[in-house]
């Protein structure tokens, strides 16, 4: 430890004596292990294919695993802001981890770009910006589709964690506005091997539609369970399930399922007039070049979007201060709020001092699983 300190001191002195490039230190906290690793690992993969410089500044990445554990996430955030003195924190993709991290980043005056739709109490998100669409936005698109399909009653089968909880709230609120009632609420844990009891209870109420709230390959088991019960109504899934994993784990039972998604995953199918088409296609091309065809997913798109946002905001902040200073972090935060309309792969983002979510209700895209692939619903 002592040795490292001396080395660092020497490095700093050398740097201060007039080095070429200043460094932009970016802290990344993602669930690389644990239940949400299916969300965190693609984000990390997306970050790994970032360019080495942003706006002329060399990028120094510090990547830490939060293990889907809020305690670890908080510790990671504390380390990043006190030890590594990062200019911005990217994370976490697990909602229950991102939320307590906000306290730490706010106290340290470091902007946090969350890759999960984390809700905070009003007034608490001065330093907190979200990349994913809020569940409310997604629920808006989904409920609109349900209404158009004539759905009046919905059964809810979702994770017991924050993701499930937030979706339940969003669905209930949106459903009330549109005359759709939730007739059954069942919960399950990602590690569960069967949801027979829950599905039985739901199907016996015979709702018009069942919404499954799960993520990645965890969405397959409840999907199959519902179909195996012989359920004949409509099945909906959320944007965390908008990946090939759904088809891989549910097989034929995924046919005909409606999945809401951000635009990134269906880049090629977007109409040319869609604002995000170019960014989405770029994301998909880059990501699949590095990781193989079909590897695209909702979450990796966010990492591409973080890059876009930083590329736009960092030059604005550089005008006011140098990286590594509290002034720079403050300027970066201001830049996020004032940089205006930004087109990203997942839609159009516009953060304002009042709104750190930034998406409009039109962002959600309804997809349908047809022949083992996603097709945009018109």
């Amino acid at each position, binding site marked *: 430890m002592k040795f490292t300190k001396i080395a660092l001191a020497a490095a700093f002195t050398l740097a201060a004596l007039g080095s070429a490039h200043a460094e932009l230190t970016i802290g990344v906290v993602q669930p690389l292990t644990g239940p949400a690793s299916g969300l965190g690992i693609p984000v990390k993969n997306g970050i790994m294919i970032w360019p080495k410089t942003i706006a002329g500044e060399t990028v120094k990445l510090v990547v830490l695993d939060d293990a889907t554990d809020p305690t670890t996430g908080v510790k990671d955030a504390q380390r990043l802001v006190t030890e590594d003195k990062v200019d911005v924190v990217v994370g976490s993709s697990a909602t229950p981890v991102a939320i307590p991290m906000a306290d730490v980043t706010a106290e340290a005056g470091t902007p946090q770009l969350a890759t999960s739709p984390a809700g905070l109490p009003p007034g608490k998100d001065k330093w907190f910006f979200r990349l994913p669409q809020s569940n409310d936005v997604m629920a808006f698109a989904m409920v609109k589709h349900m209404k158009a399909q004539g759905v009046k009653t919905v059964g809810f089968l979702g994770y017991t964690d924050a993701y499930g909880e937030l979706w339940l709230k969003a669905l209930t609120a949106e459903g009330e506005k549109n005359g759709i009632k939730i007739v059954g609420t069942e919960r399950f844990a990602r*590690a569960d091997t*069967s949801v*027979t*009891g829950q599905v*039985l*209870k739901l199907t016996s109420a015979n709702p018009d539609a069942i919404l499954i709230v799960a993520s990645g390959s965890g969405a397959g088991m409840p999907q199959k369970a519902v179909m195996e019960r012989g359920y004949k109504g409509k099945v909906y899934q959320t944007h965390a399930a908008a990946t090939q994993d759904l088809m*891989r784990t549910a097989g034929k039972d995924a046919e005909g399922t409606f999945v809401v998604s951000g635009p990134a995953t269906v880049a090629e199918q977007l109409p040319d007039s869609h604002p995000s088409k170019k960014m989405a296609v770029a994301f998909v091309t880059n990501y699949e070049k590095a990781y193989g065809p079909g590897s695209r997913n909702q979450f990796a798109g966010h990492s591409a979007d973080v890059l876009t946002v930083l590329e736009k905001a960092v030059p604005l902040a550089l005008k006011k201060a140098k990286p590594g200073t509290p002034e720079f972090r403050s300027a970066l935060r201001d830049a996020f709020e004032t940089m205006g309309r930004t087109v990203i792969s997942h839609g159009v983002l516009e953060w304002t001092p009042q709104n750190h979510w930034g998406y409009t209700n039109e962002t959600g895209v309804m997809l349908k699983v047809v022949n083992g692939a996603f097709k945009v619903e018109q």
Partner: protein
Amino acid sequence: MDLSITSILTLDGLTNGAIYALLGVGIVLVFTVTRVIFIPQGEFVAYGALTLAIFQTGKVPGTVWLLLILAAVAALMELVTTWRHRGSALPAVMAALRTFVPAAVVCAVSAWAGPRNLALPIQALLTVCIVTAFGPLVYRVAYQSLAGASSLVLLIVSVGVHFAMTGLGLLFFGAEGFRNPPFWDTRFALGPLALSGQTLIIFAASAALIVLLWLFFERSLYGKALRATAVNRLGARLMGISTHAAGQLTFAMAALIGALSGLLIGPTTTVFYDSGFLIGLKGFVAGVIAGLSSYPGALLGALAVGVIESFGSFWASAFKEVIVFTIVLPVLLWRSLRSGHSNEEH
């Protein structure tokens, strides 16, 4: 709550319970012979399911390389120990080779077979061979030198092994889950019940395995030798029963049970790298209900756990784990009072 729902839930509970029974039996098996409370039993299940899943995708599963590394480590340990024990190089090298070669052969065959996308039964057989080979190696590396330690120390070692195997599982299989194709893809209607072919296979396999184990331990000489080791290690050694061989054989059997369980549950649900733990815990509950000593007890306990869990998930889905783990307590208390006050180990 009508008859059809009850029967569906009961069937679901029994199906899950059959898997828990296999695991419970494995845990009882390992405990009775080695006094190790083998928490990582569930990891063998996950490894089994996921290895087959990767074979299905036409690649060589990471478990093959892990097996190779583990075999090398075990062989090295064997080399050092035998050399120190016997004083000369030749028996040491022979012992090391004996440890290394079987695993290496399995690895070689798997590496060859991986990309060839062979038929499902053959891949299943290879999976079983790979995972079973893990058993004795895990024993050799982690437990053998601690054979005389107290049950608590062995329990903590089990925890360490569990962490290591889970982490390695994530490394080799990735974070996403897999679902295997069913071995028998039909559905039978039995009144309101829809029995899938897979369910029947699960029941048949569990029953067969339990009967075989019972016969092994009650009727065969090897089985009795294993039980002797558990009762009195020194006495068994004086009778020519090697503690180490007994341990390795037991772990091989436990790994075999785990692999088979993995094959059985692979088609019924999505298996993740860390699915093994919770399944293992429930099998463990079943084993504890059996007092960690009787196989029929483990079977009954497991079926009970499965059914309780199933009904619990119907009535209070969020609390089913609480229910399952709380019922252990009165059972443990009853067991402990019945077995009388044995003096604590010291």
